């Protein structure tokens, strides 16, 4: 195979198009771009599935002898209550913030899972018996920094609002500085602590975003190798690797990332409400 052929095939195949978001319904509010695109549609799908999952699991047919559906719901509740909320949120705030943490976990989990189900939501078309249909593809809304940053911002704002509400502004901001720091070091410690508060925002959003992006990119690159080298011999190696990555992502990463996002949110909010633990 000549190199020119490889190059021609590589020009033809543009995997980065998966991450482009053309506006389907352009909405511009002044300088703010609120256009509806693929990520927004995926967010709607995720929100709908989350709502219906909650209603279907917990809203009817509950009995003392639980069915399988009810057992699933109860074990989900126990996981969130026992692992995420109980040790990290103080008991006076658990009633207020448990629903937030639980919906955060469920919503991110569903969004991540939906990202691995092939859905016909795409602007690219293919023809079947003369009909123009959208191509089926996988895309995760959480593999988009705007989505994860939005979720992290809610936690960030909630943390500081709750910290000020429960402790008062002065006591709360004083609690950022570790106790027993000598006066001359304050000029060094205070900027560091302020920066670390903002680093939380970055690490919380980038962790989820980069995890999902890297998972999708790995699968894409593996499948893409077949097209780049335009040889089916590559498929013998590439497809098993892609399948292995897919299984690893769906079985482990998807749940862990949702769990960690909710857990860290609970820790941050709990830590702000009761600074001296």
């Amino acid at each position, binding site marked *: 195979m000549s190199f020119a052929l490889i190059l021609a095939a590589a020009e033809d195949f543009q995997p980065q198009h998966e991450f482009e978001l053309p506006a389907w319904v352009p909405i511009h509010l002044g300088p703010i771009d609120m256009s509806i695109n693929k990520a927004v549609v995926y967010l709607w799908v995720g929100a709908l599935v989350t709502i219906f999952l909650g209603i279907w699991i917990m809203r009817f047919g509950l009995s003392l002898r639980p069915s399988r559906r009810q057992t699933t719901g109860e074990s989900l509740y126990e996981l969130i209550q026992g692992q995420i909320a109980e040790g990290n949120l103080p008991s006076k705030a658990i009633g207020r913030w448990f629903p937030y943490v639980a919906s955060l976990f469920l919503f991110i989990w569903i969004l991540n899972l939906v990202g691995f189900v092939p859905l016909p939501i795409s602007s690219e078309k293919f023809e079947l018996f003369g009909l123009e249909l959208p191509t089926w593809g996988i895309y995760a809304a959480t593999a988009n920094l705007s989505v994860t940053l939005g979720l992290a911002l809610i936690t960030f704002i909630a943390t500081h609002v709750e910290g000020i509400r429960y402790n008062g502004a002065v006591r709360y901001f004083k609690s950022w500085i570790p106790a027993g720091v000598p006066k001359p070091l304050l000029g060094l410690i205070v900027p560091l602590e302020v920066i670390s508060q903002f680093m939380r925002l970055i690490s919380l959003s980038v962790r989820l975003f980069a995890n999902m992006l890297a998972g999708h990119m790995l699968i894409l690159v593996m499948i893409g190798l077949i097209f780049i080298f335009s040889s089916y011999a590559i498929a013998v190696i590439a497809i098993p690797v892609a399948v292995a990555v897919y299984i690893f992502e769906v079985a482990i990463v998807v749940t*862990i990332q949702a769990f*960690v996002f909710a*857990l860290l949110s609970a820790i941050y909010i709990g830590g702000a409400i009761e600074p001296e633990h």
Partner: protein
Amino acid sequence: MTTLFAALDGNVADLGKAIAFGVGVGLGAVGAGIGIGNIFGSMIQAVARQPELRGELTGIQWLGFALTEAVVFYALLGGLLAYVLV
């Protein structure tokens, strides 16, 4: 994608960027690999000594796993940024 084959054209700048990206992410992965190995090793030791604490330790274990694993992705993002911007 064409930068993958930059070496064939003699485009050395792109080739350098590709190597830097690969080496950077690889080194990031080394650090996270050591860290994740440490976490699971400690978890095995802890459960072997005190099996009754397993439930409490699992949550902490996954938190530590995710915090460590994220380091690779900071390296990946930094690499991508350098790759695109430089």
